[in-house]
């Protein structure tokens, strides 16, 4: 239990999912909360030091994601505490560590997100000063499920109103503030919309610390390239946000390598009431049906759907950019044949942004890699179809298309064509990728071959034509002989089990092969998982 208390102390605001064998267990207050929220049976575990029973409840680990998503959607945070060493090799208690914290703003699992809406996490930093009207606000906004990362600065009473409107329009899932800050008082929308608020230590917002975090994350030596060198409050919010994500996701966020500064003069300002009255993205009853978005959305891909939604929430004010879009739409409207072909081709593209984000966050499975590969495989065809287009925006977008042949090559040569959904099921790394893996597979395969051959040999030796060599999880490999043939069993057969139709035996030779095969299989899976982690 000491490990449990360590984890709980570190992640006080989260429910700790404590991995024990095939279950995630929760204890004490966490157990009471989770049992109520998930409708689980509350049990109790022996006694604590003072002799009182410890409340406890658990969920099977293979169904963990479902339960975690349910809790997170109710606004809870869940800290997943895994066994980080092999229980068989551990001396004493297996070592455990929190490997990820999932909260409303960090739930990046596609199965639980609306594909047509973003899932934003927002950090706010406010300068402190005697005059509240002079307060400046730095805001950072990140969609962990797509890697989209924006910052903005607001100042004065007008700025505060703009910030409040922005929050009401974007509806982030979670808001990060410095502990002890009273931003909630200036931004009542946070409470009105029921947003989850997460406190982090104030020094995370310290400008120098934040700048360093950001430089490190964006892998640059200066923030000039992003126009942020003098945007101190924005940098403070952005740095704190990145730091919080790295701390809770335990991943380097390889999909977050750029940030965009949003200027209030970039876009048509539409306040939340106007959006509601015009039913731009949702109708008065809160559904999509009946909204402008629903009426004009004929996008094919989920990314396209999210982008159109963003365009409608933030129309443009710069003439050239509006004209560029309209000219592009016009050319697509005129070139009906090419448009139909492009749209048909886009049907082969899955949610690339969210696939890539899962891969970056190490929550992807092998099948996600194959989906990524299939999705980027359409790029050359799209490029070709757009070859004759003249609208400047279409041309520049076409120029941004990267055929990603190297990535496709990597996946095609590394991963099998039809891999399992979960990495822990193994068997997805192709032969020839890794010599060590190939060696172990050779041992495993030849062992299995030997065992298969053994069936023939034993039939010949004993004269029992119906003799079978089989495998199950409890006994491993065994030889099964039917009742009527038991008299012919040789003396080196050791009986293991009696079943309805006969008896099961092992021989020393069989056990020897078995050890080779099973040992190799275990190491094969370890090796495959290691390759997958490094991708």
């Amino acid at each position: 239990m000491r490990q449990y208390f360590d984890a709980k102390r570190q992640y006080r605001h989260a429910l700790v999912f404590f991995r024990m064998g095939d279950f995630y267990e929760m204890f004490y207050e966490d157990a009471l909360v989770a049992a109520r929220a998930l409708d689980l049976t509350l049990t109790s575990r022996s006694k604590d030091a003072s002799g009182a029973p410890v409340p406890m409840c658990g969920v099977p680990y293979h169904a963990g994601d479902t339960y975690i998503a349910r809790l997170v959607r109710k606004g809870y945070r869940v800290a997943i505490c895994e066994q980080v060493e092999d229980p068989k090799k551990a001396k004493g208690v297996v070592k455990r560590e929190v490997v990820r914290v999932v909260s409303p703003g960090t739930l990046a699992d596609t199965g639980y997100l609306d594909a047509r809406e973003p899932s934003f996490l927002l950090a706010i930093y406010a300068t402190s000063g005697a005059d509240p009207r002079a307060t400046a606000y730095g805001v950072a906004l990140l969609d962990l499920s797509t890697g989209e990362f924006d910052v903005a600065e607001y100042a004065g009473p007008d700025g505060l109103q703009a910030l409040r409107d922005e929050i009401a329009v974007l509806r982030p899932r979670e808001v990060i503030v410095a502990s002890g800050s009273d931003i909630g008082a200036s931004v009542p929308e946070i409470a009105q919309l029921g947003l989850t608020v997460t406190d982090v230590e104030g020094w995370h917002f310290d400008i120098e610390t934040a700048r360093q975090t950001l430089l490190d994350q964006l892998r640059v030596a200066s923030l000039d390239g992003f126009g942020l060198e003098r945007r101190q409050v924005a940098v403070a919010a952005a740095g704190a946000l990145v730091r919080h994500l790295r701390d809770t996701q335990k991943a380097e966020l390889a999909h977050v390598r750029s940030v965009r500064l949003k200027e209030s003069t970039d876009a048509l300002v539409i306040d939340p009431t106007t959006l509601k009255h015009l039913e731009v993205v949702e109708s008065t009853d809160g559904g999509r049906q009946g909204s402008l978005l629903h009426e004009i959305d004929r996008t094919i891909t989920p990314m396209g759907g999210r982008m159109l939604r963003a365009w409608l929430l933030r129309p443009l004010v710069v003439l050239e950019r509006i004209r560029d879009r309209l000219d592009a739409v016009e050319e697509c409207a005129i070139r009906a044949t090419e448009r139909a072909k492009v749209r048909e081709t886009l049907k082969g593209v899955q949610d690339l942004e969210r696939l890539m984000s899962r891969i970056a966050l190490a929550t992807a499975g092998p099948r996600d890699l194959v989906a990524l590969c299939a999705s980027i495989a359409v790029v050359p065809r799209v490029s070709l179809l757009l070859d004759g287009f003249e609208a400047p925006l279409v041309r520049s977008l076409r120029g941004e298309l990267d055929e990603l042949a190297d990535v496709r090559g990597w996946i095609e040569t590394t991963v099998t064509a039809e891999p399992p959904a979960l990495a822990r099921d193994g068997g997805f790394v192709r032969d020839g990728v890794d010599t060590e893996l190939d060696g172990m597979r050779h041992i495993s395969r030849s062992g299995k071959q030997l065992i298969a051959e053994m069936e023939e040999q034993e039939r010949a030796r004993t004269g029992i034509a119906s003799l079978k060599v089989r495998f199950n999880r409890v006994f491993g490999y065994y030889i099964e002989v039917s009742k009527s043939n038991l008299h012919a069993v040789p003396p080196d057969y050791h009986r293991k089990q009696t079943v309805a139709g006969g008896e099961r035996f092992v021989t020393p030779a069989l056990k020897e092969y078995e050890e080779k095969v099973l040992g190799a299989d275990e190491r094969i899976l370890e090796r495959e998982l290691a390759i997958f982690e490094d991708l």
Partner: protein
Amino acid sequence: MSPRGAAPRVLDTARALAALDVLAGLAETASVSNYAKPHVSDDDTLAATDVRHPVVERLAGGSFVANDVQLDSRDHQLVIITGPNMGGKSTYLRQVALLCLMAQAGSFVPAREAKIGIVDRLFARVGASDNIARGQSTFMVEMQETAQILNGATSRSLVVLDEIGRGTATFDGLSLAWAVAEYLAKDGPARPKTLFATHYHELTDLADAQPNVNNAHVAAREWKDDIVFLHKILPGRSDRSYGIQVARLAGLPGPVITRARTILHALEQDELSRGGRPAISGQRPAPTAQLGLFQAESPVEERLRERLREVDINRTTPLDALQLPVVSWKAEAED
């Protein structure tokens, strides 16, 4: 290269594909729904013909009546729209606001032709707000929202307002609507392009005094005491609101309609006796003459009121009621 290492390149490509998907999708919508490419410019004019509401148009299935719009910073800076409720004012306001929003988002627009001067802010207050659930009164919310507009709009903004002042007493509402319209048209720091729908006909007088204010009305045709909404927005003021005909359509009982007609007639007479329109345009300073409706009571009326007050309905049986000295009251009143 491994996928994780290539994440930024994959994401850039994903976003380019997404943008192409959006552009091709908007083109598809433009073709299917017969939208036109708007002419966008940096000037201050919003002028379009045969504008439709993208959602209502489809629900109406071919019977939608398209309308024109003209707004600029000169003689069409603020347009006051009057006419019957149910006549399509709200839909009209929404479709004009959506016209700008769609064009500036990069979409074609549901109109035959549209010239759109880029706007910097868009304010629409059309239809009830749902803030009532938060325990604020409708009127309070309405006024807060109006305040946001008056404080936030610039001369490059577009404002569409529906029935400002509807949430309070008639004279309060009229006064507020009048003052808000005046602020947007002449007194305020900014003069945003504004569509101002109201059921206060008095507001149409504003156009007489302000050259940048224009009137428009929703056309309706009376036919044998019934009303037919034409859903057409036409220049000029409407002479009446057809409220009673609308109430009849809505199924109010016959006696209520008849009674309402009588009251309306009386009120109209009274208004004429006060010298007719424009009653409160500020051009005819005769405020004391306008109090006819609520003049102080005569002593007789006061006495009768007192008599009635003395009757305790809760302790009056039907038989008692018949025996009330109604006859003597009548005599007293006719004295």
